[in-house]
């Protein structure tokens, strides 16, 4: 049951991000903050298992599924199905990585590490966007 909750919460996180981005149009900051909040509460209140990688993978995959679902309109318009594959590949890697960073920061239970992990995740996300945008 907890596994499903983790996955569903990961699926719906982009919805919250969407609302927040209406006010603050900085996707890398907004998304990572929301991820941090989600991971914090999941780690604190939900039985999430022992594997940090497993948790990051669940959350990252669920996030990417929602992203891809919404982005699918554009694949159709562009008529380039290979974009779907590449996009899933790279965004899944990014989100799993940033979730892993955040999880490691949160389990330290120290405020300074909270900030460091969040900042690091934001930077990773920003760099990813930057390089991909070219």
């Amino acid at each position, binding site marked *: 049951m907890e596994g499903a909750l983790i996955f569903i919460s990961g699926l719906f996180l982009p919805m919250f991000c969407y609302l927040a981005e209406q006010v603050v149009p900085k996707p890398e900051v907004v998304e990572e903050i929301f991820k941090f909040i989600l991971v914090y509460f999941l780690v604190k209140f939900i039985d999430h298992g022992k594997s940090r990688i497993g948790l990051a993978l669940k959350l990252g995959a669920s996030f990417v599924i929602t992203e891809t679902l919404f982005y699918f309109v554009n694949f159709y*318009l562009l008529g380039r199905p290979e974009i779907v594959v590449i996009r899933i590949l790279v965004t899944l890697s990014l989100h799993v990585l940033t979730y892993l960073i955040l999880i490691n920061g949160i389990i330290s239970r120290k405020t300074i590490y909270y900030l460091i992990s969040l900042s690091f995740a934001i930077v990773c996300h920003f760099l990813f966007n930057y390089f*991909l945008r070219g």
Partner: protein
Amino acid sequence: MFKRAVFALFLLLFAVLSPAQVWGSSYQKCAVNSSCVLGEFLYDDSYVPITNAVCTINGRDPDNAVFLNNQNAPHVNDGWYAKTVSTTGLSVGIYPTKLCCVTGGQTLCIDKTFSIDEPDLTQSSVDNAVTSIKGGANLDITQVATSVAMVQTSVNNAVTSIKGASNKDLSEVSTDVGGVKTTVDSISSAMGTLVADIWSNSTNSFNTLVNSIWTNPTRELTSANITGGQIATASGVASAVTSIKGASNKDLSEVSGQVAGVQTSVDSMSVVVNNLSLQVSTVSAKADTLLGKWGTYSIADIVSGLSTITNNIGNIGDTCLSGNTIMARSQCLIDKWGSQTAGSVYSAAVNAQSAAESLRTELDYNGKSTTAYQDIQTLNTNLNLVSGLLGSSSDSALTATIFGRIKKVEDNVESLNTSGTGLTNLLAKWGDYSAADIFDKVKDLSSQISAVNTVDNVSAILNKVDTSANDLEQLKNTVLSLKALVSVNQQLLEKTANKPIVQSWLEEGSIIFKNLITNPSTTTRQSVSLKFYLPREATQKDIMVVDPGLSVVYDPSQDALEVSGEFDLDPKETKIVSVEVTDVWKIEDSEINALKNQETELFEPLKGTAYFAQGTTLKSDIEVSLEKISRLQRDAKTPEARILAYREGEAELTKVNGEINDLKTLVTSLSSNKSMFGFVGGSQLLSVWGMVMVMVAGFVFLGLLIKKVSSTKEKPTEMAVFDKLTVATSKKLSAEILAVVVLLVVMAVGMVGYYFLIRKDDGISDKAGSLVVPTETPIPSPTATIIPTPTPTIMVEQKEINLNSPKQVLGISTDEPTKSVVTASEITIINVRSKPSLTASIIMKVKVGVVLQKVSERGDWIEVKISALKEGILYKTGWINKSLLIGS
């Protein structure tokens, strides 16, 4: 121990931080360009000055060259031995020097190394230097720097001003001026002979030049008011052309052709009659001479004269085309106007020919007998009869001669032309007249046409005006049918007698396709096949009424409805048959208004954004197109014009839809830039609300799930939860590091792949991680497959003839744009580029099978109509390599 260490450290710090003087005396300093005294005091052990020592001094300069070589340093006083050294001309640096003194057998040497330095600065010297630097202006460095900056700004401004808008420096300007000078020089040298060259040029004279300009196909008239000096726009010219074409929608060549056809026919008949008259006069004169000199002429003379007469009369079998005899020309008259008018001429000619034959026979057998004399009298009488029937060129239209007939035909032609013009003008100004005025004009024109009408059984047309005094639609139909009647009369005058005439026209109601079929022959019953195609927009369900004798079937080869029928017409019989079709050639105002509203709504969110300019352009284009559609429909006075307006309006509508899509793309792109789900704005409304519902349902489900989890399971302590993840083992750590490495590698590979496979290929700007959609979402433009409407044909006596020009269907243009179909055998996506070059940027991609509209062609490239937004630029056309297209 600790105190010692602190003390030692303190000493060490003191030693390190102490100035150099602490460690020993520095060398003696001597100023440049001065005198430097090098010396030393000598004392004995009792500190008594030694005065008898011999001292010498040796030294080297900074370059290690000997500078002082055993120079004597004499005793001055009180044990002071010294040597004065001039530093003038010496360089700055360290001079290793040693002073050695010998006294009492002992030698004592002392290091007297000195340095030559720049003199120390004094406050006054600094002040002087500063004063000197400040100079007369007494400005410090900051002030000077400010002044310099101001000067620099001024200079920059001056340079910018000098460069001007072209932003060229003087050397570039100089180069340009040089180029201009060279050009001017060459022009100047050429100008001397220019006029002579032009005048003497055999192939490009002014006359040729003017002709070339005048016959240039792309040249436009400089407006109807040519003296006004205005340059007409293309739309102005098009409007003028429409005005000139009028309701009949016939261009000048067609109208001219039709009028000229009638006129040429009349003129040719006039020539025939004139020649016939001249020929008859000549022959008649010859016959008169033979008769007058019957007694004096020999038989040979009479036979010779008779041969001339018979040759001119010709034979019974002569046709209009066979020769220039009286019989042949008489036959021309019969062919044209029937035997009723020219038959008597032909009969008299036949009688004259018969008398001439009888005369020749009589002369051969009996010589100049009484019978022969009677024969030549008969011949002369018949020739005079022919002459009388022909009449003279001064005969009026009322005279019953051939010349009178010609005059009458000419009058009829003029009257028909006047009536036709009057009807055309009436239609063109339809909206300007009241119903009463129109009624009066139509009645007058109907009377004029009735006076010259030669078609029987058309009272239904001619009397229609009496029943439609206030019914504008009926009045317009009367005008349209009268125009058709004028056309039939003109054709009867132009064409060979007795041939059936078919005339088609359209009337208002719904749309009524009417056909008048007439048999002008007074004696022969004729069968007429009628066949024509309805405009392609008409379908079976639109057919309302079909007259008996007509059938309407779909012709797949022409993709249009074919109307056909067979009619047997008695002599002088005329039939009018029609097909009534629902008026589908109208773009409803509601549709135009809906598009206007959509355009306004789509434009609204673009205000104050970077897309405002493009949006304004599109909005303007859309409004112009919609206004054009309204105007075209408003100005279309006749059914033909309405169908033409509909087709033109349809083309405009397609364009408008494309531009609406462009506006949608702009709005979508705008949303995309603002948020990560912006592209949703471009989706259907249903999708958006669907998403909202899913979100709400998801939140509810999430809440319920959390509640269930927290109530059914013992909540683990915070420490226990954290501990689960923080139990770090070396195995776990290794796995995590490995995972991070794998993720980074995958990301790197993916990004490289993305760049090389997609981004580099088509320049898609994507920000995957943030879910922001690309700023471009090329949408293939909607393409309408335009099927050509077949050329209408009318079958007349099994001979298929074109009723109208190839581009007309019952007067309706069937021009269509060329289409190209994208195809490829091995690839599925084709690049559309901004220019006809492989190096040009790709503005969109299209799938194989998409039908695109061809705009132009250049070399191996085809320009096609598209609609794509790329880097903020809206492309309406693009280029595709010809090898990838079919139907190009």
